[in-house]
Each structure stands twice: as C-alpha cells, then as structure tokens.
C-alpha cells in the first residue's frame, strides 16, 4: 500500500521547473503551499521523489530565505544513494544548509569517507566540495587521512580540490599539518598552472594569518614569482611576499627586482599591475627603484577615464601617503580634479588624500578649496568635508593653525553653510579656542557677535549648539567687545523663543554677565580717583570700551528688564529662575541708577553688590587636564573609604546622566542641585562609622557645597574626560574651580598665539590577549613540519615568536569567528595592533633566512 502511494506521488510530483513557474506567477501563498507539499514528499522512501523535493527546497532556501535546516536528515539520506544525480542534489543541499550546530553531522562522516575513497572522480570532487564548505573539527580530524591520499592523487581535478580543502582542514584541525603539509609543499613545485594557483591560493590565506611560519618557503615562492607567466598565480604570490617582506626586510631587497620586471612589461594586465603597486607601497616602500616606478604607474591610473582605475589609484596613494607624501603632492591636481567626480567613492578617497596633504602652509588654501566643494555638494558629502576639516585642524590642540583669526572666521563660515550638521563639533572648538588661546578672544567675540545678531540662524536647529557657544563666549569675554549693548540686545531678541530652553538659559546668563560688566565699567568710571567719566579701559588690556553715560546704562538696564519680564512666567524652571535672578538684581540697583548717581560714595550697597558680582565673574575658566584630579594632594589625616558604595547607590542614577551629557547645561545644573541636597542628606543620615576625618569632610561639604566639583563625590568615579568636567561646570558660575595643575606650552614663533596645552594622555589601546590553543598548535605544527623537512637548510625558531604569533593569530581568529557585524574602525585598530605586533616580532631575534635567497 505504502509503495503504491509513493508511486502515485512520484508520478505526480511537481518538478523543480513547475515550482519555478508557479513562483513566477504568485508568491507567498504559493511558497507555503509548496512547502507543505515538500514536507510530505520528502518523507517518502523513494529516493527520486525525495531528491526532487530536496532540490525544490534548496531552491526556496537559497532564493527566498526559507529555512531548510529541518530537512538535514533527509539530505543525508539522499546523499547515501548510489546515483550520481541524487548525490549531487544531496551534497548541494548539505553545503547550503549545514552549519556547525546541525545535529546529524555525525552521520555524514562515513558517507563522506566512502565518497572520498570512491574511484569516480566526480563523486570525490562532490565530497571535497562539501567538506570544504561545512568542515568541522571532528570531520576534519576523521577525514584527514583521506585528504592526504587525495593530495597525491593522479587526477588533477581531485588534487586541486583537495588542496582547496586543506585550507579548511588546517583551520579546524591543526594536527592535520603533520600529515598533509609535506604533500602540500610538494605541489608548489608542480608545473601544472592550475595546481599551482590552487596551492598558492592556499598559502596566501595561510600567510595572511601567520607570516612568520612560512618564511622558509620563500625560495620556492621566489622561483614561482620569476618563472610563472600566469597572472592569477603571480597575484597570489605577490600577496604572499607582501606579508613576508614586511617581517623580513632582506627579502624586500631581493624581491624588488622581479617586481619591477613585471611592472615594466608592456602588456601586463591591470590587475597584476595594481597588485605590484600595492605590494610596493605596503611592504617595499623603502626600496627606491620600485617605489618611483610604482608612482609613475599610479599617475597613469589617475589619468585614466575608467572610474575603477581612478578609485584604485587614489586608494593606493592613500596607502603610501603616511610615509611618502611627495608622491601625493606630485599628483595634487589629479586629486583635486577627482573631488568633483560623480562617484562618491572617488570623492571620498580624494578628500582623505587632501587631508593627508594638509600642513601649516597650505591649510588656508586647502580649506578654501574644500569649502567651495562643500557648498556645491550634497548634504552627506558636505558634512564629511566639514567634519574632516574640523578633525584635521583640531588635531594635537590645533597644531597646524597659525592664524587663529582666520580659523575662527572659517568656523563661522561653516556655520552658515546650509547643509551643515556639525554644530556640536564647531561649538566645542569655539569654546575650546576661547579658553586656550588668549589672543584669539577678540576675534572670537567679533565672530560671536555676528552670529548672535543674525536672526535667520535661530531657526536652524543644527546651529543651536553653535549659537550657544557664541552666547557663552560673548558673555565670558565681554570685555573685548565694542558694544555690549548690542550684544545684550541680540541675546534677548524676541526670536530667541525658537531656541530650546537650555540654550535660552545660556543666553540669559550671558546677558547677566554683560550687564554686570557694563555696570562695573560705569561705576568704576565714576570713582573719585578717575579724572574723567569718559573712556576708561578695563584691566584686561583689551580694546577701549565705550564709556557708559548715565542714560546709556539706564537704557541698558531697562531694556534687559523689559526683555526678561516676559520670561518670568515661562514654564521652564531654568529660564524662569535665571530671569528672576537678574530681575531681582536689577531691582536692587535700579534706584541708584535712576538717581543719576550723584553720590560718589563707593561704600553704598549697590557698589558693594556690583563689586561682588564682578568678582564672581572674574575668575577665568581654563582647561582642566584629565589627570588633574589625581594631582590634588590628599589632605593630612584624611581617610577615604575604599569604595563608597553607599554613595554609589544613591548617586548612581544622578551621576550617570551627567557623565554622558556633553554640553547640555540644564541637566547638569539640576543634577548639581540634586547632589547638593542629597549630599546634605547623606551627610546627616549616614550611619556607617565615618571616622572623624570623613565627618569633617562632610561638614566641610555642607558649608561649601556650592564650591565642590560634583564628581568629587565618589572618589572612584574619576573624570573620564577633563574637558567634560570643565564645560559642564560652567553653569551656575558659583561652581568654579580653577585647578592649578595645567601647563601652558610656549611657542617660540612670535605671530602664533599661545595655545594652552595639557598633558592629557590618551589611554594606550589595550591589546586583546585571548589565547586559543588551536592557533598555537597550528603555527607550532607548521614550524615543526618545516624543520623536519631538512634539505640542508638551517633554521632557528624562537619560542617568543609563538606567543607573538599567538596573539596576532588570535586577533585574526577571533575577528573571523565573530559575527560579521564589525565596524571599520575596530577592524583597522586590530590590524594596526597586529602590525605593531609584527614590528615587535621583527625586533626580536630574526629567523635565519636560508642563504640561497641572500
């Protein structure tokens, strides 16, 4: 009965063609229907039906994302058939769907073994293909001997595939090396180009992971490099040499000649040429002849119309840029032309190259060119340009900038570019320059004034951070400005209602600073000691400030009052509080000013109040080093609890948002207020036995809570970024701390102003230190295999190399084993740490390369 059922089914089974035709007509319901059918069909005993069902399933899985892992067992069944057609389908399905977790993997081992030993070379090749794709540790281990036999097979087809499989096997089961390596190396000497390309391909991959172990094979590779005419082979060999030469400089000298030979050939293929150039740039860049030749060839690439070649040319130049900038400079026009190319890849490469070229002399010129491009390009590229200019100019605390006035005007120009989205970075730099470079403050104030006065900028939300920086700068350095009245007016214009509340608060506060400054000037001008009421320059050595007449002061005061009255009822607490503060202050001094200030008595309340406020604003904020906290000496007799866990619990939710916020002031001011309250609570309610000293500390805190840096709360909660601390403590001003532990670097050249630099040390990148026994075994196995080869060559191995190779391999292995969701930066940092390790390795005892080569 069952068999007749299957007969019926097999006669009427939908073939693959029908499936495809059906799919082309209608999609998802058809898929689910066919899946049902397939599930039924695949469970039947008839192998043909099963195999057709499997074929349909693999089609669906490959192209429509249907999961087919449930059919694993059936795939194994199909593979066991003796018919080639079934085997093919079965192996195909296996290669597609099996992974390391498939439970039926064990069942395949025997089947694979049988097929690998079969006399039919096509069956063997099927099995090899499959093994290459799904090989696991166990499979590799069990089938090593078969692969070994096949490596020596007489049929080229089989041998070739076996070589390909070796790569996977070595990867999973390093002990296989002992068995197979010799045969592998023998194949290097084969004359068949197919075999050769396969072998060389395998070695290329292996050397990518661990170049040192394959150094003794260099002579064979050299022979191939010189003799072979096949482009595929040559490209791979060049790659191998690129890796080997970077750890063995003597090789570089030897290899330079053949590489030049290849480059000079008339009809050399572009791919080979490019590979030669790349090898020269990355590993042979110390050799003059190949380097010059390569640069010439690169020029040809850049002039070509083919966008591929242009892109590759630029890419290659960027490889060589760090060491040999002259090559880039020679091709400057080509690079600039490439900036206006249609292709975004080409444009990006050109941008990177331009950035690499920038130095003190040409920074103005290059920025000019780049800003022109930025105005013309689409938003994405525009922001990239602006971003890269910002990064390049601010590197090493503005190393390359000589003329800060020009740079500040450039920053304001950037702010006016329509597509600009880099508000935060520009804000940061404006404030940074203000605090570090005294001489630029005049220009800074001028620039800020221009930004503040313009009402059109208020609507653009990307510019708000810049505006907040401008407001802060105007307030802080108001002594440099010519017309404080204008600034105050700009800060309080009605259109500022478009700003978010936090920035509004900054505006109001700056207006306050302006007011205090003006009052200070006015009243000091009225001192009996001064001779006239007119021009009086302040003590900060700035440009002359217009003296304030009584009328101008009172109009200033009333203007501010008017502007702030409307705000005293806003919803936002911060804005309201500040407005009320200022209004209160104005209330105190108003009557004095209205009285035409005839009294010369400097002891009046008003005078005292104004003097006090001036004092508050007079402390200058400087940049704080990230190590400043550690440099503060602990007072005598102070005993700190190791981990103030109690504090952690209470303060954690409060301190965390603060640590994350860059320059959002209102969060900070609130958290500071909260902390003050909590602090007092904590101090009063803490029952843990504080020693006398810590209770003294708590008392001190209570009294001077205003003046404490909030991050001093928990001593283990160190500042991660000194600058963060600095700017986050600007509001309210009472929280000023001027730490004396910064050092200013004096530059000798006269025109360049002083930039205050700090000893901020970046944490060195910690290298990952995972150890995996597999890689150790692999490299050790390879090295013993090569040593055991003898052939009259003397080799020396150092144990240290193991550890170093271990790390480099681990990095490579772990990066390969992870899911492929890596970011570019992470990858390049791993590679740079690997290169660093390689350099380290070459510093230790070098391997004796056989004399044949030298």
């Amino acid at each position, binding site marked *: 009965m069952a068999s007749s059922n299957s007969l019926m089914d097999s006669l009427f089974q939908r073939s693959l063609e029908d499936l495809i035709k059906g799919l082309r007509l209608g999609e998802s319901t058809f898929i689910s229907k066919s899946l049902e059918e397939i599930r039924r069909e695949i469970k039947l005993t008839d192998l043909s039906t099963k195999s057709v069902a499997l074929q349909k399933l693999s089609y669906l899985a490959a192209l429509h*994302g249907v999961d087919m892992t449930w059919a694993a067992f059936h795939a194994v069944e199909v593979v066991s058939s003796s018919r*080639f057609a079934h085997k093919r389908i079965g192996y195909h399905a296996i290669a597609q769907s099996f992974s390391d977790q498939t439970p039926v993997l064990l069942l395949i081992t025997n089947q694979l073994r049988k097929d690998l030993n079969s006399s039919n070379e096509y069956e063997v090749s099927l099995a090899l293909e499959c093994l290459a794709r799904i090989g696991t540790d166990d499979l590799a281990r069990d089938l090593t001997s078969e692969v070994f036999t096949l490596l020596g097979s007489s049929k080229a087809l089989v041998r070739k595939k076996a070589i390909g499989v070796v*790569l996977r096997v070595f990867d999973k089961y390093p002990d296989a090396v002992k068995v197979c390596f010799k045969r592998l190396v023998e194949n290097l000497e084969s004359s068949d180009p197919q075999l050769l390309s396969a072998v060389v391909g395998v070695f290329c991959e292996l050397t990518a992971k661990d170049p040192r172990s394959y150094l003794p094979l260099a002579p064979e590779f050299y022979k191939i490099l010189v003799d072979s005419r096949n482009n595929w082979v040559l490209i791979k060999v060049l790659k191998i040499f690129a890796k080997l030469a970077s750890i063995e400089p003597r090789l570089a000298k030897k290899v330079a000649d053949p590489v030049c030979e290849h480059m000079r050939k008339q009809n050399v293929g572009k791919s080979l040429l490019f*590979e030669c150039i790349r090898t020269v740039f990355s590993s042979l860049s110390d050799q003059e002849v190949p380097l010059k030749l390569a640069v010439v060839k690169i020029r040809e690439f850049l002039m070509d119309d083919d966008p*591929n070649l242009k892109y590759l040319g630029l890419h290659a130049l960027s490889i060589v840029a760090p060491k040999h900038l002259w090559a880039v400079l020679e091709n400057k026009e080509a690079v600039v032309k490439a900036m206006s190319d249609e292709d975004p*890849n080409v444009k990006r490469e050109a941008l990177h190259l331009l950035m690499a070229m920038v130095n003190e002399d040409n920074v103005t010129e290059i920025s000019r060119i780049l800003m022109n491009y930025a105005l013309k390009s689409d938003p994405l590229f525009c922001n990239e340009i602006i971003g890269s200019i910002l990064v390049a100019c601010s590197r090493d605390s503005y190393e390359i900038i000589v003329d800060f006035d020009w740079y500040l005007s450039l920053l304001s120009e950037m702010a006016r570019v329509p597509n600009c989205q880099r508000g935060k970075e520009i804000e940061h730099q404006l404030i940074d320059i203000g605090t570090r470079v005294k001489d630029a403050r005049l220009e800074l104030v001028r620039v800020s004034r221009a930004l503040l006065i313009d009402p059109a900028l208020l609507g653009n939300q990307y510019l708000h951070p810049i505006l907040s920086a401008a407001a802060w700068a105007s307030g802080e350095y108001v002594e440099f400005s010519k017309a404080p009245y204008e600034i105050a007016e700009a800060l309080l214009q009605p259109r500022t209602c478009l700003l978010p509340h936090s920035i509004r608060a900054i505006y109001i506060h700056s207006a306050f600073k302006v007011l205090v400054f003006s009052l200070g000037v006015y009243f000091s001008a009225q001192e009996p000691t001064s001779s006239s009421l007119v021009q009086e320059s302040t003590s900060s050595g700035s440009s002359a400030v217009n003296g304030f007449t009584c009328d101008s002061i009172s109009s200033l005061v009333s203007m501010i009052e008017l502007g702030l009255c409307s705000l005293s009822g806003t919803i936002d607490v911060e804005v309201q509080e500040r407005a009320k503060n200022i209004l209160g202050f104005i209330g105190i001094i108003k009557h004095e000013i209205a009285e035409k200030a005839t009294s010369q008595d400097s002891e009046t309340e008003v005078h005292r109040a104004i003097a006090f406020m001036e004092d508050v604003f007079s402390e200058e904020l400087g940049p704080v080093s990230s190590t400043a906290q550690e440099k503060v000496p602990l007072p005598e007799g102070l005993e700190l609890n190791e981990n103030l866990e109690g504090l952690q619990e209470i303060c954690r939710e409060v301190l965390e948002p603060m640590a994350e916020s860059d320059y959002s002031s209102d969060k900070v001011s609130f958290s500071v207020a909260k902390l003050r309250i909590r602090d007092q609570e904590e101090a009063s309610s803490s029952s843990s036995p504080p020693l006398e000293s810590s209770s003294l500390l708590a008392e001190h805190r209570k009294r001077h809570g205003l003046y404490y840096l909030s991050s001093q709360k928990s001593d283990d909660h160190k500042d991660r970024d000194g600058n963060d601390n600095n700017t986050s403590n600007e509001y309210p001003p009472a929280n000023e701390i001027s730490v004396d532990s910064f050092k200013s670097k004096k530059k000798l050249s006269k025109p360049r102003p002083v930039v205050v630099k700090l000893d901020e040390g970046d944490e060195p990148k910690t290298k990952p230190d995972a150890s995996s026994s597999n890689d150790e075994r692999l490299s050790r196995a390879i090295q013993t295999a090569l040593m055991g080869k003898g052939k009259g060559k003397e080799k020396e191995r150092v144990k240290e190399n193991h550890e170093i190779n271990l790390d480099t391999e681990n990095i490579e292995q772990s990066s390969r084993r992870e899911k*492929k969701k890596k970011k*570019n930066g992470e990858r390049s940092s791993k590679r740079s740490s690997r290169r660093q390790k390689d350099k380290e390795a070459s510093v230790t005892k070098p391997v004796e390369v056989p004399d044949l080569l030298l």
Partner: protein
Amino acid sequence: MIHFVLLVSRQGKVRLTKWYSPYTQKERSKVIRELSGVILNRGPKLCNFVEWRGYKVVYKRYASLYFCMCIDAEDNELEVLEIIHHYVEILDRYFGSVCELDLIFHFHKAYYILDELLIAGELQESSKKTVARIISAQDQMVEAAKEEAGSISYIIAQTT
C-alpha cells in the same frame, strides 16, 4: 577570500546566492536586502567597488543582472572583477548565449558551475575549457542515471 556571491536582478530579485562564511538565515536575508539597496542605487558610470561594513564588494552588471562578490579589504579588486567575468563566460559557453531565464530555470546548474570555479572562497580553476569539460562529464552521468530511472524495468522494480 571571497565571502559570498550574490546575483541580483535589476528589480531586486535574488537569482543565486552562495555563502563561503557562516551566516545564519536571518543574517543572510539582512545582508541581501542591504547590499541590493546599495548596489541597485548606484549609477552606471560609477566604479565597480563598494565599501560595505569593512569589506569590499565588487559588482558588475551584465544585462539586467548584477553579479556581486564580497571580499576582504586586502584582496585585489581587479582580480575579482576578472573572476566574475570568467564565471559569466563559462555560463555563456555552457548555456549558449546565457540569459536571465536560463539562470532562473537551471539555477542548480549555475550552482554546480560555480562550485567548480570557486572552492572555500578562492579561485580554483582558471581555465574555461576544463570547467566545461567537467560539467559536461557530470551531466552525462546524470543523464545516464535518468535514463535508467525512466526505464520500465526500474519502475517495476520500485513498486515490488
């Protein structure tokens, strides 16, 4: 090494996928979606290389089909372009003026040819003649098997 091969039509339909690195089914569909978006949006005169997630993807357009191969950052892109061309030429020779329909209805044959061409993500056979010879030999074996299956004696043997 080559991480995967992807054939996408101009309308975004996937015609062939071959993966040489471990990707789960969900990841595969995500990758396909992302990459199709990037590549199908590129203009005709732009260069054939795209940087994507730290890897490079080399693609070439033949008629209405995009052939994409994802490689490591350090591999030679021009070489991979040649590999793609090599594959297309072999397909052409095998099907005789191959068109997209051929690939749709004989997708498994396209897979087998690709298997002869690339193994473990590396090129294994750079001669077109050899590949053609191997594939035709395999086809003959399949044909022989089919004939045998179609014979009456076999069907009778099955049912009893």
